């Protein structure tokens, strides 16, 4: 039997397989390491971290929807000090590359986090969240205006040292290709998409919004076809590589995003449904390769 190549190259790094996890759905791996072999992942992408602790939004923060869920966590996180002391310390005891997701209300806040980690050997790449629909100030504005996106990309690149900077894009825009190009012009080394779609749910008996934040971000299998379309449009508009995500629930979904143009794929909400889903997806990709006579996974990236 010929040996299969599952490794992929992304922004100067080689990852052992194309499967990572979507920020905010896996913490820093501490909890899920009890249920799954996190060292088999291509990489771990951590929950968004800011320069100071963030309280996040009031509860209720989550609700189930057909084939998915809505969340308005509001990027609650303990801040960069605790992240370095606790989360990165844990991750440095694991044999798995780390992609650190960064959030902020202002350019200065993103820069403050990047400065702390730019020389840290435990970090492979940065993913900059300019696309959270649940934070009023900053965040999503950077991701919906091409000029602001280019500017914040440049500023993040300037503080990231030698580490690649991936801009995480929101689907809540008219043209994802325009945003993808803006990030590339700003010097981004890669893109990741999609973040959640802004949504709303009303309790008709209580006559109230279900989420305290009124709106929330929709994720899960319900958004997968939107993700395929946007990954296709974004990856064809730029030369930099893309991490595709949105409702990945099976190896078929992962392969679909790769054919649409993603070099890597992130599994998000489905970790909640099945903590072992990432292992099944990695095994499934291998099975697909064997079944279809594909020796090198890189040969299917962006074939459409």
């Amino acid at each position, binding site marked *: 039997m010929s040996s299969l190549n599952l490794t992929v190259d992304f922004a100067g790094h080689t990852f052992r397989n194309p499967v990572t996890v979507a920020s905010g759905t896996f913490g820093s791996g501490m*909890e899920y390491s009890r249920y799954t072999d996190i060292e088999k992942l291509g990489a771990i992408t951590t929950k968004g971290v800011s320069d100071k602790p963030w309280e996040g939004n009031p509860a209720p923060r989550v609700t189930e929807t057909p084939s998915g869920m809505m969340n308005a966590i509001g990027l609650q996180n*303990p801040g960069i000090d605790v992240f370095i002391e606790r989360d990165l310390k844990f991750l440095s005891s694991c044999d798995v590359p780390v992609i650190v997701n960064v959030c902020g209300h202002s350019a200065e806040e993103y820069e403050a986090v990047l400065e702390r980690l730019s020389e840290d050997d435990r970090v492979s790449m940065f993913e900059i969240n300019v696309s959270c629909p649940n934070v009023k100030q900053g965040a999503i504005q950077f991701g919906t205006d091409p000029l602001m996106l280019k500017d914040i990309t440049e500023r993040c690149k300037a503080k990231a040292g030698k580490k690649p900077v991936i801009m995480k894009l929101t689907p809540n825009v008219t043209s994802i290709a325009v945003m993808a190009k803006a990030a590339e012009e700003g010097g981004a080394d890669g893109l990741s998409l999609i973040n959640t779609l802004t949504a709303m749910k009303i309790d008709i008996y209580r006559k109230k919004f279900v989420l305290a934040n009124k709106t929330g971000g929709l994720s899960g299998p319900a958004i997968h076809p939107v993700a395929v379309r946007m990954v296709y449009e974004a990856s064809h508009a730029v030369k930099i590589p893309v991490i595709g995500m949105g409702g990945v629930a099976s190896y078929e979904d992962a392969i679909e995003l790769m054919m649409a143009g993603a070099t890597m794929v992130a599994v998000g909400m489905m970790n*909640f449904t099945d903590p072992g889903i990432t292992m099944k997806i990695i095994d499934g990709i291998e099975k697909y390769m064997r079944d279809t006579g594909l020796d090198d996974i890189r040969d299917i990236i962006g074939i459409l």
Partner: protein
Amino acid sequence: MACGVGVCLGCVVKTKNTDEHSRVRNARICTEGPVFAASEVDI
């Protein structure tokens, strides 16, 4: 409750004091709870 294991931060309850894990005034019901001392939470 979305993840039930402490990663999503979807289940939190406001706390009187800073929570040891989250470092803000929110505790995860699935992990630090579900039972809290009434004096520790804001409900």
